[in-house]
């Protein structure tokens, strides 16, 4: 069994600051991490390694600097790591990203056929949840998004059963391999790798692929040129024209009374709505 995990290197969002004057993102010195959602995908892949001896290949598309993300994935137990990097990929939107990644996955599959491609639910920078389904569509893989659990895999029959989070419930789906799974968050915990993995990772030579190495059929579909979406404007949200009314008081109690008076005067009907709501919720509690 061979599984590929797509991981993205993202800036640690907790440490991002926006320049107060220019409104631009200050990335300098912001440490990068593996997209946190992708660790759920990686752990699920590593469980297939435990269970079936699956080979785990991690794949990242990004600038040369994306190298540390891949390096960090190895000590957890990933077997191979490929960095897809080329100037041609710069400025990719999700359509162009899924094009580049699916080309590379197809190439990886030529040497060793792939059974499952794993992605995270979404990234914390792009935050679209589009790249996973994009890859599935392009490679004609059965698409299983928001998977909360792999119930079973029948290697012989090449069948998989999963739980998929839907609106208001969980779907139990059965499909054939190969498939693409996007893992839901909080479904597992990334493991501590073994000492062996740590040693192997330290010596491991990453594979670096350009667009040509990855066998990308049409570079015009990559990067900015291949991206149908165009960012026209980046701006700070405007403050409301009417500023928030300040509520003050000598003591917290006085302040609380002032607030309630002010709010109830400005929003007639609110008090009645609240009282109805309380009636409903106390009813609910007693029944």
């Amino acid at each position, binding site marked *: 069994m061979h599984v590929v995990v797509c991981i993205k290197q993202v800036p640690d969002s907790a440490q991002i600051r926006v320049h107060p004057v220019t409104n631009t993102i200050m990335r300098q010195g912001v440490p990068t991490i593996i997209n946190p959602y992708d660790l759920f995908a990686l752990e699920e892949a590593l469980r297939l390694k435990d269970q079936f001896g699956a080979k785990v290949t991690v794949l990242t598309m990004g600038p040369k600097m994306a190298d540390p993300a891949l390096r960090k994935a190895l000590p957890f137990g990933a077997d191979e790591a490929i960095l897809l990097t080329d100037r041609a990929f710069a400025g990719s939107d999700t359509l162009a990203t899924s094009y580049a990644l699916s080309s590379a996955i197809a190439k990886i599959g030529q040497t060793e056929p792939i059974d499952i491609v794993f992605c995270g639910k979404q990234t914390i920078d792009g935050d679209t949840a589009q790249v996973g389904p994009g890859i599935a569509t392009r490679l004609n893989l059965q698409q299983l998004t928001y998977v909360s659990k792999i119930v079973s895999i029948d290697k012989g029959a090449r069948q998989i059963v999963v739980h998929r989070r839907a609106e208001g*419930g969980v*779907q139990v789906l059965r499909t054939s391999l190969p498939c693409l799974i996007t893992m839901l968050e909080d479904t597992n915990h990334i493991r501590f790798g073994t000492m062996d993995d740590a040693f192997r990772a330290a010596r491991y030579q990453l594979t670096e692929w350009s667009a040509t190495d990855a066998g990308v059929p049409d570079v015009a579909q990559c990067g900015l040129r291949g991206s149908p979406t165009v960012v026209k404007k980046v701006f*700070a949200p405007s403050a409301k024209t009417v500023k928030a009314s300040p509520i003050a008081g000598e003591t917290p109690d006085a302040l609380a009374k002032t607030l309630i008076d002010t*709010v109830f005067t400005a929003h007639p009907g609110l008090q009645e709505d609240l009282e109805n709501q309380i009636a409903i919720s106390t009813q609910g509690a007693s029944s």
Partner: protein
Amino acid sequence: MTEQATTRPAGRTVELDERLAAYKGVWVFIEMERGHVHPVSWELIGEGRKLADRLGVDVWGVILAPPGEANMVAAGEAYAHGADGVYLMEDPILADYRTVPFNNGLCTLVNQFKPEILLLGATTLGRDLASAVATTLATGLTADCTALAIDLDTRSMAATRPTFGGSLLCTIHTLKARPQMATVRPRVMAMPPRTAGRTGRIVNVPLNMREDDIITKVLDYIPDRDQEQAQLAFADFIVAGGRGLGKVENFRLVEDLAAVLGAEVGGTRPLVQGGWIGAERQIGQTGKTIRPKLYIAAGISGAIQHRVGVEGADCIVAINSDPNAPIFDFAHYAIVGDAVKILPALTEAFRARLSANRKSI
């Protein structure tokens, strides 16, 4: 979304080439789960109506469902909320959501009738389907939009969404492909008024697939037992806390106030990450979007990802010790002070006021 792209010249008038100009009209995918329409569909019809009126075109709902009476009921509701017509694709294969038949069906309709805009709810179903459709049609898709508008110069849709980093928004266009696609999360757009008796056209189109050709099978559907998720999004009264509460024990102050108001409780993402509250209680871009009548936010800074989730509230009361906290830019009432001291006072004052009044009725 890319940074490089921002350096391109903007505002240039683009003559749509003939191929693209053939695409006309605004479509809204009507999401049905077991005969029940997700309310985000009506919110989008309301939004689609505004876009269509700007463009001078029609709004169409799109229903993909198994045959049944529910479909005509849904079509009627679509008209009542502002749709001019409904494309209806009925097939038993569409009983449960699966990517392949839905992608196939929706792409067939798009290729045949060519809408210029296609909107879907950013639900698990809508996101799964929108990505597959946009990839199949090689067109642009903007996720989780918070505002949609029309740029009449280019006749293109301006889709605004929060961007990376905490306090910025960006506006994205799809200029060289059609349809222009966007997803919008439930509760972000207001529910449009319902006009009873409004009617529209219906166009039936077959799916033309065989069940045997579909590899993925739905074995079972396990409905959620606790309806907690729905409750927060649809609650009229919500009290929420943020990191400014200082320590997890103080979150009880939020719960106490909520109990007195019969309100739901929520919080910011750091509280979820810190294990103070469950993920289903997170409010904001990656949590729930809310539209309550009253929202009380204690110790919350008001970062853009939180703001986009609460801006639909009728009345926002913010308690923050920092007079310059961004939350005061969009709150209606500002209390500058220590939430740990003010919350208990509010709880007592509301208790006194609301019960006093109840006795007097």
